[in-house]
């Protein structure tokens, strides 16, 4: 299992039957492979689908059926189509239970920064800002550090924010971390790591509950 698969598999366990979820690009698109009751979860896509199924096998693509990331997808039973205004009404109206998003930075207070790097022109906002600000739960799925090893989980974001105080949980290849009013609380540790490694790679302090930290 690659580190990305590990993150996706752990993230899938946050989903409850009956929930409506939205998947950002990258790691989140791998989550459906690990949903235990995929038929009981409705995947929403910004381009106007509720009930996205698995990705298409080669040769079965439908030219009119893609998700917001541009991948050819299938439908699950009970799916529906709607226009972009209704699609974002589902998002901003509070009917998305969980959005899984990647990030550039996330802060101890749950601030999310994942859309623009000053100096480089941003390719756009897409639906991420609305998902981050309005989904009932925002779960960040990300590598724990940048490609060159710098922490992504910071006291404060340095990049322009996508949304303030929106993140509830951060899932990386090393840890599951909840954003709480007291600060970041370490909920689980990956089997391959230990607390001191994770804290070393996390700029913000991690709160730890007494007793053994569950592993994943």
């Amino acid at each position, binding site marked *: 299992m690659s580190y990305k698969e590990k993150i996706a598999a752990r993230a899938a366990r946050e989903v409850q039957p*009956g929930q409506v979820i939205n998947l950002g690009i990258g790691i989140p698109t791998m989550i459906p492979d690990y949903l235990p009751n995929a038929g009981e979860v409705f995947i929403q896509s910004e381009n106007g689908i*509720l009930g996205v199924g698995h990705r298409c096998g080669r040769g079965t693509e439908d030219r009119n059926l893609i998700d917001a990331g541009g991948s050819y997808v299938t439908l699950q039973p009970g799916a*529906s*189509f709607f226009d972009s205004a*209704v699609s974002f009404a589902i998002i*901003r109206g509070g009917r998305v239970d969980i959005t899984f998003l990647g990030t550039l930075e996330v802060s101890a207070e749950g601030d999310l920064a994942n859309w623009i790097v000053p100096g480089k022109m941003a390719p756009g906002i897409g639906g991420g800002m609305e998902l981050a600000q309005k989904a009932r739960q925002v779960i960040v799925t990300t590598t724990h550090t940048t490609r060159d090893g710098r922490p992504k989980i910071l006291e404060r974001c340095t990049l322009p924010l996508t949304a303030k105080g929106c993140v509830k949980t951060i899932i990386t290849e090393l840890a599951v971390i909840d954003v709480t009013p007291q600060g970041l609380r370490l909920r689980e540790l990956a089997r391959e790591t230990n607390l001191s490694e994770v804290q070393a790679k996390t700029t913000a302090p991690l709160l730890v509950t007494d007793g053994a930290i569950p592993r994943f």
Partner: protein
Amino acid sequence: MDKTMAIEQALTAVQDGHTVMVGGFGVPGTPFTLIDRLLAQGTRNLTLVKNEANEAGMGVSKLLEAGRVHTLITSHLGLNPTAIAMMNRSEITVELYPQGILAEKIRAGGAGLLGIVTDIGIDTILRENRQLVRVAGQEAILEPALRADIALIHAATADRAGNLQFAQSARNFSPLMAMAADRVIVETEAIVPVGALDPDAVHLPGAFVDHIVVLDELTAEYGVLARHVL
């Protein structure tokens, strides 16, 4: 996934003091069974949002007549002299909006917006006591979005995941209100398995629906209203 539920259980969600949106424009789309059961369970002190107040003795008018409603947010009471009389005697507070502005206020609530900006009524007494703004060099009214605790909705067909279809002129405010309430209770004439509806033909996606009550029968109130027949 199965959102069907007994009517009594579904309606326990409606509590004293709640704001309740009720679909329907005249008879079509009015959820008479949910309203009757709400009346029977005695919930009071309601703020009601409905296009009009049905007609005397029917639908939401029963809730008004039983004193369960302190405020009615609506577009007109033209077909209900009982409701007009209650308004004139100040037994209910009535907030009137242009019909399409009422629809947009509800839709804005459903779309997670905070309000809309419109020039409708800007040259009339409707501008009084309104929040005025300037946009594109023009004076306009900022109308706050409207949300509710509960929406009561009538559907022609539902699947068990809550995808809905409405029949003809029964659609009206129903999808908008279903978007705009924290808890959405649907009564349906027909229930079908998940996967039975054409995804391109769903009028309201199931994400907006919490509970589905399957109607055993359509009472006389749902039928053709003799006094409106030629």
